[in-house]
Each structure stands twice: as C-alpha cells, then as structure tokens.
C-alpha cells in the first residue's frame, strides 16, 4: 500500500473513534508537555547561569601572576606552581608579550583603590575600580541609567546607585555633573642623595625610592548602575566608583603592593600584582594558559569549575528528562490500550482487508501509521502546551522578580531542537507502543476475523 493511502486510512480510522483517540492523543500531549516543561526549565536555567557566568568573565578569563607573588589562594582553586626558578616581573613588557598571543582579546591590570570622592560639599571615602572597555560589550551592568564611558581614556565615571544616593538623594541628577577624586599618587624622587655619583636621575630615583603626593582628578559622571557589576571573582565587582582602566593606570595611585614592589625592584617601575587576560573563547583558555606559563608566569582559570558546572547541568537535564518522560511512559500505555481495543473492534475489518489483498505488512503499517499519527499530533499539542506553560512561568517569575526589585529573567527556554526532538520522541514512543498491537493485528487469522461479529 502506498504511503498516502496508509496515512489516509489511518486518519480515517482515527476519526472513527474520535473521542477515544483524542483522549489518547491528549494523554501523549500531556506527557510531551511534561517532558518539554522539565527540559526547557533545565535548559533555561543552564542558559541563565551560562549567560551570568559568561558576563562575569569566569569562562574566558585567565589571571596571571608573577611567580614571585604566589601567595595564598582560596581553597579549591587551581594552582600552577612554578617548576623553575624564573622570577620574571609582571611588567609592561610581559603585558605586551601576552597581548601578542593570537587567542588573547585584551590584557588589563586590576586596579582598585580606596580614596576620597568629593561632590560639591559632600566627601566620601570609597572604593574606586578601573573598568576595561570590554565591560561595555559584556554588559556587566544589569540596569544602568546614562551611558558607558565614551572612550577608553575619557575622564568619566560611573557610580554605583547606593553610593550615588549617598551623594545626592536623587542620583539621576548626578549624570553630567562633575566629581573630584582625591588620591595618593606615587611619584619618583627627582633628587639624588648627596654622595651619589650617578648622573641619570631616573636611575637615581630607582635606587632611592618615591614620594606619595596628594592629587585631584575631575571626572564627569556619565552613568548610574543599579547593581554591582557582574565581576565574579574580579575585583571591580566590589567597586563603588568606576573609571576607565586606562585612566586609572595613568593616575599612578599608590596601591597595597606598592611598598612590597619597592623593596624588590625599582620603586618607580610599572609592575602589576596581577593581569587579567581575556580569551576569545572559553575553549581557548587552556591554550592561552599554556602559552603564558611558557613565558614564565603563573596562571589561574576556572576551567575545572566550568567542567563541573556543565556536568551538573547535564545530570540535571537527564533527571528532569527522566521525570518528564514518566508522564509520556504512562501515555504510551494509553496508546497500547487504544490500539488493542481498536484491534478487538476492528477484527472483522482486518479480516475483510486481508480478504481483499492486504498483506500482514499492510495491516502492521496501518496500525503503526495510526500510532505515529497520534504521536505526531500529541507531540505537536504537547510542545505547544509545554511552551505555553513556559510562557506562564516566565511571566510569573518576571512578576515575582519585579516585586523583589530584581531585573526580569527568562528561566524557561524552548530551543528549536527541543521542539523537533520532543515531537520526534513522541512519534518514536508511539511507534514503540504500537509494536505489540500492530504485530497482533497483522497476525490475525483472516478466516477467524471474518467470522467475528
């Protein structure tokens, strides 16, 4: 029998017992909806976590330290202890070298310092952090009034909302206004000790130290960020005033490690306690780490943690899928029941078809087509139902988050592959459920079937 005849006959047979077949199809639809609901929740949560972590730079960032500076790490973090006695400084030259690694997108120092911020008559002592330009593309601020820095070296600042409120009860007014940063600049000494015979003043300063000079820097406020930025373990996450990293670097602010560096190297030489290396893709992190280690530095990344996170979501999806499939398994019993009932009711019809020339295969395929049609329709309805449930839950979640003064989140995601996969799975389960009834129908003795009343 030709395929279109098979489908036509199957559809006709399904229409004959429309109530029973509709209920069976509805059972499949509920099963598929449950599966789609569970999996889309897992996928949605994974996507949400990945997006959050991606924005935090957890997956595409390598932290680089000088091997001299290996201090205590947090427990569980990854260590790459030096195997040589290479004590190379993390300086400008090293930074440039890292920037040349093909997979590296940007290299920037972590700059964060406590200092005084003045706005009008108000003075606050707070944490200032440098933000790399990539922070704009990464959308590290969830909600922000105003705009991001206009240029890498613009004298501009973004304030964290709570801090902004401490300067002005109506922080929106601050946008476009100026504030003053009062900070301690590290300045090389320009005088030589009396008994020095060296003529090079820079060399002299290197030998003898630096001054700490009070400076002021005027900055224009361009944005107010509602929440702290997604910084993950990067230090700017804890900042209250954000300025471009390039501007922060030029300030030459005395930092916690300044004194320690002064004891080791030239007090005026530009060195970094650590550098953040952003990689083009998370898959390239390992290669970049290896390259940096080769040039003599210690690296740290969250690769292992990422692997564990992915494993967690695979297991979560698996369990959600299993729970979701339970309803589909129950529905598949409904298909078996419906088709077995159909065999009993259509016993004579099967006998007639065989007498008219239908082969066992034709009868078997007809029952398969009926099971497959129920599976397809149930799958289609189930995906629609699952999607609708997802929209309702997303709506509810958004509403709840808004009441908690939190930004809206999509915790539910139904990708196209899930739509196709769920319908395909529904058809497959239906066909498997149809195996026994179809085989039973095909085996019917036509003589016995024709005698059946």
């Amino acid at each position, binding site marked *: 029998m030709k395929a279109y005849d098979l489908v036509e006959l199957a559809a006709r047979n399904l229409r004959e017992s429309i109530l029973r077949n509709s209920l069976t199809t509805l059972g499949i639809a509920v099963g598929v909806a449950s599966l789609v609901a569970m999996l889309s929740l897992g996928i949605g949560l994974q996507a949400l976590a990945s997006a959050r972590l991606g924005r935090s730079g957890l997956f595409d960032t390598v932290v680089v330290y000088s091997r001299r500076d290996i201090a205590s790490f947090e427990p569980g973090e990854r260590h790459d202890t030096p195997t040589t006695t290479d004590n190379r400084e993390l300086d400008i030259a090293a930074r440039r070298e890292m920037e040349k690694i093909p997979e590296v997108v940007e290299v920037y120092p972590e700059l964060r310092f406590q200092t005084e911020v003045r706005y009008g008559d108000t003075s606050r002592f707070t944490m200032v952090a440098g933000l790399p330009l990539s922070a704009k593309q990464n959308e590290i601020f969830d909600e922000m009034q105003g705009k991001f820095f206009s240029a890498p070296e613009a004298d501009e600042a973004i304030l964290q909302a709570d801090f902004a409120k401490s300067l002005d009860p109506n922080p929106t007014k601050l946008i476009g206004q100026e504030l003053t940063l009062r900070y301690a600049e590290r300045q090389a000494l320009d005088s030589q000790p009396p008994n020095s015979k060296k003529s090079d003043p820079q060399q002299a300063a290197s030998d003898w130290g630096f001054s700490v000079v009070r400076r002021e820097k005027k900055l224009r406020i361009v944005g107010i960020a509602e929440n702290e930025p997604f910084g993950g373990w990067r230090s700017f996450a804890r900042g209250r005033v954000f300025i471009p990293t390039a501007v922060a670097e030029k300030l030459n602010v005395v930092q916690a490690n300044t004194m320690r560096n002064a004891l080791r190297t030239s007090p005026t030489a530009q060195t970094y306690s650590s550098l953040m290396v952003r990689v083009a893709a998370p898959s390239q992190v390992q290669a970049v780490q290896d390259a940096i280690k080769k040039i003599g530095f210690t690296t740290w990344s969250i690769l292992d943690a990422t692997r564990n996170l992915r494993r967690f979501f695979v297991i979560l999806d698996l369990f959600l899928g299993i729970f979701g499939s339970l309803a589909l398994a129950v529905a598949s019993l409904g298909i078996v029941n419906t088709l077995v009932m159909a065999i009993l009711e259509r016993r004579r*019809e099967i006998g007639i078809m065989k007498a008219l020339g239908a082969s066992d295969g034709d009868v078997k395929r007809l029952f398969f087509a009926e099971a497959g049609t129920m599976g397809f329709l149930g799958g289609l309805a189930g995906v629609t139902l699952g999607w609708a449930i997802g929209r309702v839950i997303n709506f509810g979640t958004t509403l709840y988050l808004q009441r908690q003064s939190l930004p809206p989140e999509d915790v539910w995601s139904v990708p196209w592959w899930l739509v196709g996969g769920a319908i395909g799975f529904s058809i497959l389960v239906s066909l498997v459920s149809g195996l026994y009834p179809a085989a039973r129908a095909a085996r019917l003795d036509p003589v016995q079937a024709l005698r059946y009343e």
Partner: protein
Amino acid sequence: MSVDQQNGNAIRAENVTRHYQMGQTVIRAVDGVTLDVRKGEFVALLGRSGSGKSTLLNLLAGLDRPNAGAIVVEGRDLSQMPPDELARYRRHTVGMVFQSFNLLPSMTLLENVELPMRFAEVERAARAERARQALEKVGLAKRMNHRPTELSGGEQQRASLARALVNQPSVLLADEPTGNLDTHTGEEIMELIRKCNDGLKMTVVLVTHERQLAEKHARRFIHLADGKVVAEGAQL
C-alpha cells in the same frame, strides 16, 4: 505453462486436508478433497451446513492453508506461497463475495470498491474511475456516495460484487452470496455473477445450499459431506 494450465484447469485441489483441533477433538472440515475447475467454468459447491464447503472456499481464496495436499490456482501452488505472495494472489487473482457482504460501514460504496485497489497500489485517479465503472456495471451509479447502512441487502451485495471484480480477477469465489437476500434479489445477484462468467469468461466457484439457484446458473456441481467430495457432475 504448467500441466494444469495446459489442460485448461484454473483450479486444481489435490487431496486437500484441513483439520482443526478443538480441545481433544479433531474437526475434519476438509478431508482429502480432490477437484478440478476448468478456466471459465461455473462450479457450485453444494452441501449441508458443516459439510466443509466454506472451508474449502477459504482454502481456494488463500485465506487459509491446508494441513496437507496442494491447491494449484493458475499454475501456482497456494500451499507453498509465502504470506506476502498469498496476499498478492488474493489481490490480483481472486475476487470474493460473502454472504454478509462485508462492506466497511465507515466508507461510502465508492471508497469500499476502491479499497482493493489501494492494496494493489493503483494510482488514485485511475482508482476512482475504475470504482465508478464497477459500480455502474452493477447498477449502483446513483448510490456511490452512500454508506452501506443506507442501502438494501441487494444493493450491498451488488456493491460487494463490484468490489470483488474491480481488480479484474480471473477467479470469482462466492460464499452463499444470496444467503441474506430474498429470492428475487438473490436471483438478480446470481444473474450478475453469471454475466461475469459468460461475458468476462471468469471462473466462478459458488458455495450455496440452494439447489434451485445452483441448478439454474452453475454448469457443474460438487457435493460435499463431512469434508469429502461425495458426488460430482453436470447434473444434480
């Protein structure tokens, strides 16, 4: 060409046996039957209820298989055919008419007549045309879109005959085709069957217990009793 075909035999049954096990009892429905039906012949199988005539007809139709013996139809031994080939045989070589019509109630007459052509994989357009022609031949041109339940017994049996003939079989097997009809309508059906035999040179095997009807239309008679052929000839 087989010996049977050379001899002009459409059907040859040789020592055919069909036994059923019913608990401890063996029912000998057909017990060593040997018969020949020549091409274009109209043969009536007569006998009382339970004599084995319907069982023999089912064996000739390829709906059942004998326990022993051979049934050769148009040179092919049905007992040796695999199931799919047997289905093809039912599709193309034989047409069947039943006492209880056996039309599918959910389909119109046109759809019922089209059904064997679906199994024979006839193209949709050709199928509809052939079904119409078959129904016109049996006088049901105006009833094509009616369902069987909307028709009289005679009309249903005529539709059943149209369905049996639509794949142009060479053998027509009729199992008590007038059993559920009044005398007049039964006579009409028998006339149609005889037309097939006369006009199309179709081999007809008729199972009936109505001697009068058989006598009027068949040319040879085979009497069965207890699963055996007890008499055979051109006279009743």
